[in-house]
C-alpha cells in the first residue's frame, strides 16, 4: 500500500518536473522552427526556382546580383556597360514573348520546336537577357550562356534598402527599411509614453489618495486588457483622420499614428513597472530627504527618482519590447510603405506588420515565405535581447547590490 503511494508520488513529481520545463521547451521549439524555416532563405536561388537567366555567349558578363537583375528588368539599367559589360544595349526577353513572335504551328504541336526557337533568338541578339524556364533551355547550348544561379546573400538581406518580395524575376529582400521602421515607430512611441507614464507613476505612488488609486489602478489594468485590434480600429477611425487634418497631410496613416497608438498601449507597462520601483524606495530614504528640509517634490526628484532609476529604465526597456512586437494596431494605422522614413509623418512598415500582411500570400516553402520567417527570427532575437536587458537593468538595483 505504502509502496503504491510512494510510486504515485514519484510519478506525479516527474509529471510536475516535465511541466516545469514547458516554457523552456516552447522557447527551444520556437527557435528551432523559426530558424529552420528562416535560414533556408540563404540557400534559395535569387531568381524563382526552375527559371534561368541566359545571355548571348559573346556577352562578357559572368554573373549578376539580384539588385542588378531587378534594375535591368525594371528598365532602370539599359546598357550592359552599367553592370560591367560591353557598351551594348540591354534587350529584355521574357518567356511569354515567344508566343507573340511565333505562331502555334511554328512552335510545334507539343512545343517540340520551342527550345530551338529560344536558342535562335538568343544567338541572334548579342545584347539579350532572357528569363525562361530551365526545362526549355535547348539541348544545343552553343551561343547561349546560362548565368550561374546566385544565392540570396546575408549581406543583401541586411544591407539592402528594397523590400519588394513579389518582384519578378528577382524578388528583393532588403530588411533595412523594415528594421528602421520598427525602431523608428517604437522609439518615438516611448518618447511620448515615458513622460506621461512617469508622471502618472509618480502621481500614483506619491500623491494619489486611496480613492484615486482605486480608480486609477483598474483603469490601467483595463487599458492593458483592451485587445490590440480594438486599439488599431480606434486609431484608424479616430486618430488617422485627426492627424491628417491637424498636420495637413496627404494621408493620415503615418509613423506618427502608429507611435501614438503604441504609446497608449505601452503606458500600462511603463506605469506599473515604474510605480513598483518607486514604491520600493525605503521609507528611511524619503524621511531622510524630508528631514534635511527638502519639500515633497524635491524629495521625489532628488531621492526617489534617482533611487528607482533602474526600475524606471526597466520600464522603458519593457515598453520598447511591447511596442516592437505589436502587430495589429501598427498594421492598421501606419500605412505600410516599405521605405526608409525621413520624417515621422510618412507611412512606414514594421517587421511584425510585414509578417502579418504578407505571410498569407507567400507560398509555403518559397523564398518569400522563408524571408518572412527570417524577419520573425530577427524580431524574436530583438525581443529576447530586450528581455535580458530588462533583467540585467533591474538586477543593478542599488538595494540588491546592498548599497
Amino acid at each position, binding site marked *: 500500500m505504502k509502496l503504491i503511494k510512494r510510486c504515485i508520488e514519484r510519478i506525479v513529481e516527474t509529471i510536475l518536473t516535465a511541466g516545469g520545463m514547458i516554457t523552456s521547451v516552447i*522557447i527551444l521549439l520556437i527557435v528551432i522552427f523559426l530558424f529552420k524555416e528562416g535560414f533556408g532563405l540563404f540557400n534559395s536561388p535569387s531568381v524563382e526556382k526552375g527559371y534561368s537567366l541566359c545571355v548571348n555567349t559573346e556577352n562578357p558578363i559572368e554573373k549578376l546580383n539580384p539588385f542588378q537583375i531587378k534594375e535591368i528588368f525594371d528598365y532602370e539599367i539599359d546598357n550592359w556597360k552599367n553592370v560591367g559589360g560591353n557598351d551594348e544595349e540591354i534587350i529584355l526577353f521574357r518567356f511569354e514573348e515567344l508566343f507573340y513572335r511565333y505562331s502555334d504551328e511554328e512552335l510545334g504541336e507539343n512545343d517540340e520546336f520551342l527550345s530551338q526557337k529560344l536558342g535562335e533568338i538568343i544567338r541572334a541578339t548579342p545584347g539579350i537577357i532572357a528569363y525562361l524556364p530551365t526545362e526549355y533551355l535547348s539541348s544545343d547550348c552553343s551561343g547561349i550562356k546560362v548565368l550561374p544561379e546566385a544565392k540570396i546573400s546575408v549581406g543583401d538581406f541586411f544591407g539592402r534598402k528594397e523590400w519588394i518580395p513579389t518582384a519578378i524575376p528577382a524578388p528583393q529582400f532588403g530588411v533595412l527599411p523594415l528594421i528602421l521602421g520598427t525602431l523608428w515607430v517604437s522609439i518615438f512611441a516611448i518618447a511620448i509614453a515615458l513622460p506621461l507614464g512617469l508622471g502618472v507613476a509618480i502621481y500614483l505612488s506619491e500623491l494619489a489618495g486611496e480613492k484615486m488609486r482605486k480608480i486609477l489602478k483598474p483603469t490601467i489594468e483595463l487599458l492593458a486588457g483592451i485587445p490590440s485590434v480594438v486599439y488599431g480600429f480606434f486609431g484608424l477611425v479616430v486618430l488617422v483622420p485627426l492627424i491628417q487634418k491637424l498636420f495637413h497631410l496627404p494621408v493620415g496613416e503615418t509613423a506618427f499614428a502608429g507611435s501614438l497608438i503604441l504609446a497608449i498601449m505601452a503606458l500600462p507597462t511603463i506605469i506599473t513597472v515604474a510605480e513598483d520601483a518607486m514604491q520600493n524606495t525605503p521609507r528611511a530614504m524619503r524621511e531622510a530627504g524630508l528631514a534635511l528640509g527638502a519639500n515633497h517634490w524635491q524629495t*521625489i526628484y532628488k531621492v526617489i527618482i534617482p533611487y528607482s532609476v533602474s526600475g524606471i529604465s526597466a520600464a522603458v526597456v519593457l515598453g520598447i519590447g511591447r511596442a516592437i512586437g505589436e502587430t495589429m494596431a501598427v498594421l492598421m494605422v501606419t500605412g505600410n510603405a516599405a521605405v526608409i522614413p525621413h520624417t515621422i509623418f510618412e507611412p512606414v512598415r514594421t517587421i511584425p506588420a510585414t509578417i502579418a500582411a504578407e505571410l498569407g500570400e507567400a507560398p509555403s516553402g518559397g523564398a518569400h515565405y522563408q524571408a518572412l*520567417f527570417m524577419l520573425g527570427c530577427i524580431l524574436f532575437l530583438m525581443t529576447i535581447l530586450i528581455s535580458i536587458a530588462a533583467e540585467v537593468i533591474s538586477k543593478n538595483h542599488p538595494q540588491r547590490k546592498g548599497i
Partner: protein
Amino acid sequence: MTAKTNQKIAFCVFRILGMLVVGLLFWILGFIIYNGIGVISWEFLTGYPTAGMTSGGILPAIVGTLCLIAGSSIIAFPLGILSAIYSSEYAGNGKMVQFIRVMTNNLGGVPSIIFGLFGMALFVNTLGFGDSIIAGSLTLGLLTLPLIIRTTEEALKAIPDSFRTAGLALGATKLQTINRVVLPMAFPNIITGLILSIGRVSGETAPILFTVAAYFLPKLPTGIFDQVMALPYHLYVIATSGTDLEASRPMAYGTALVLIIIVLLMNLLATALRRWFSKKVKTH
C-alpha cells in the same frame, strides 16, 4: 518660496496626467460604446454576416472565439498550473528554478506574431493540422502559458509556509499537502489568473491569422479540424479590407463593442472574484 511654487506646478502636472490616463480610457471606451451600442441587437448577435459583411450578424465569429477560448483553456490551464506548482513547490531555489523563471519571462515577452509564425510552422504545416481550431487553440494556449504560470505561482507563494509544515506535521505527504491544503487555499487567486488569460485569448489576432481564422465562413464549426471566424480577426477584416468599408463601419463598431464587453466582463469577473474570496478568507 520658489521651491513651493515648483512643487505646486509639478504636482498639478502629475494630477492632470493622472486624469489624462483615465480620460484616455473613457475616450476609447466611450467612443466604441457610443457608436456600437445601436448596432447590438438580437439579430446582430445570432445572425450570419450578409451582403459582403456589411449587414447581418456575427454569430460565426462569436462561436469561433468561444471555441478558441475553450480549446486554448483545455491546453493551457493544466500545463500552466502544473508548471507553476513545480517551480514554486518542488524546484526549491536553485539555479534550475531561476533558469525556468527567466525562460518563462522571456516567453512572456515574445510578440504574439512570433507565436503565429511558430504555430503555422509546427501545427499547421509540420503536424499537418491545417488551418483549424486545434492549431489555433494550441498556438493561443502556448501564448497564455506565461501569464497563467506567473499568476498561479504568485497565488501559491501567497500561502504561508506554516500551512505546509502543518500539513506535513500531520503525517501527510508532500503531494497530499499540496493537494488538500495549498491548492484549495490558492484556488481563488489561481482562478483569477485563468480568467484574465481568457480575456487575453479572446482579443488576440496575430496568432490566429495563419493558424485558424477564416476571412468569411458563414457556418458553424462541426469539428476541431474546421476553420472558424473569430471576433478580433473579423474586426480587422471589416475595418480594413471589406468590400465596402463605409458600409461595414457599423458592423465594425458592433464587433469592437462585443469584443470589449467580453474583455471587460473577464476583468470585472476576476476583480469581483478576488474581492469576494478575500472577504471569505478573512471571515474564517
